[in-house]
């Protein structure tokens, strides 16, 4: 499923378009949205990269 590789573009869109997340609310565990939204992209990006990783053969 090579289309999974296109998922790697999502972090660029989600993080480089600042108006998506430059807010205080809703906050989570005391973190304003600006902070937890960007921190949340860390595991999300790792997961998307893993999906893309599975489309490669592990030989090379």
């Amino acid at each position, binding site marked *: 499923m090579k289309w999974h590789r296109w998922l790697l*573009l999502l972090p660029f869109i989600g993080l480089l378009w600042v108006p998506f997340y*430059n807010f205080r609310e809703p906050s989570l565990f005391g973190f*304003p949205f600006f902070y937890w939204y960007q*921190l949340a*992209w860390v*595991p999300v990006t790792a997961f998307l*990269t893993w999906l893309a*990783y599975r489309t490669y053969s592990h030989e090379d």
Partner: protein
Amino acid sequence: MRTEGNHAALAVFLFFFALVTVMGFVAARWRRPETLARLDEWGLGGRQFGTWITWFLIGGDFYTAYTVIAVPALVYSVGAYGFFALPYTIIVYPFVFAVMPKLWKVAKDRGFVTAADVVHGTYRSRPLELAVAVTGVVATMPYIALQLIGMAAAIKALGLAGELPLIAAFVILALYTYSSGLRAPALIAFVKDAMIYVVVIAAVALIPGKLGGYAEVFRAADEAFRVKGSGGILLAPDQYVAYATLALGSALAAFMYPHTLTGVFASRSGNTIRKNAVLLPAYTLMLGLLALLGYMGHAAHLRLSSNNDVVPALFQALFPNWFAGFAFAAIAIGALVPAAVMSIGAANLFTRNFWKAYVNPQIDEAGEAAVAKITSLVVKVGALLVILYLPTQFALDLQLLGGLWILQTLPALIFGLFTRWFTAPALFAGWAVGLIGGTWLAWADGLKPLHGLTLGETTVTAYVGLIALGANVLVAVFVNLLVPARRMVTGPDASYQR
């Protein structure tokens, strides 16, 4: 000062420093090669590092001691804007995933050790090779100097006066890098990264409790910025483009540096690199939490003479002494790994793309390794002299320009992996325009990373390195269209065959 406590801190610090020193020298025997007298053994650890070693090595080398000091310091002083390091160190991995396995394969198949080797192998152009090599070395030198600043901050916080401790630490580092090559930082990185993780987890778990919780930390920071009248815990609308372009430009530049590329080339396979692109974001999570120490500095009402003191001061105020010593050791050891890899990367470039290219083309493998070992010593002494005799600001300014410069090597190094359309003269022209134009813009703005671009009615402020990269690519495309295309030679280059 808390003299007794400082003894405990100092003892812990010295213990760990002694431990990694022994490890640095023992590393020469680790995964023992037939001989270290070959550049891809000394300088790339034999290209056999698997997933975990690569994870520790690149993590230890990319998230430097200076990062640990400087990112919280920037967040402390300007707020949300300093957080661009987080999106930067997230989007860098999809880029690494897509690009670096291809680059690794070219290097592995043809025995290349440096970025400039790859460029010469692809385009058969000595000028373009030299451009990439010189840019790499010049951009790396101030970066090594910054590691010394990080180490100096930790040593100062321990209460050790004078420059002697710093010099001693660096001389030891220079000696075991000389004898063990890339195996030394790769082995030390295990200790360094484990220590940094312990410190960061302790800091983000314990410190907010002492300061009244995360909500209170953000409230205190918000209040401090309001009183100060500048900065803030959210971005101002005119900072949006600056934030995004700094993140993107830094992400594209990050793996053009010799030290990060050394980590890539030293891995065992393309698959190792892809797996690491999945696993390395763990360090980014740590960096994001670490950045919040800047706000904790506000909540703890620290009084600082310099923003760079925020992390050491916070540890000293809120950790028991022995643990503060552990934390400072983590930072100081954190400087050793990148400084070692940077000097190795610079030495590899000098050896392959200057010495072998211009001074002694007949040099054999043992000769290459000998030249690189000496060069790594010279590079480190140079960085030490810069820190001892030139103002700190000089290293910081050079580091800023270094990021801009190294980014200009991207088209020459990366485009050839995906298309054969570009020619060497076009890429060289693009590199020159990006480098000179970008430097001029930054210089004219008083060495600031941001430049205001006026597009019709509106002015946007963007990262000058990315503006220069735009000019670089445009010029390369333009020259390629104008200059009649000569077929590029893509056959294997005899001089690199082993």
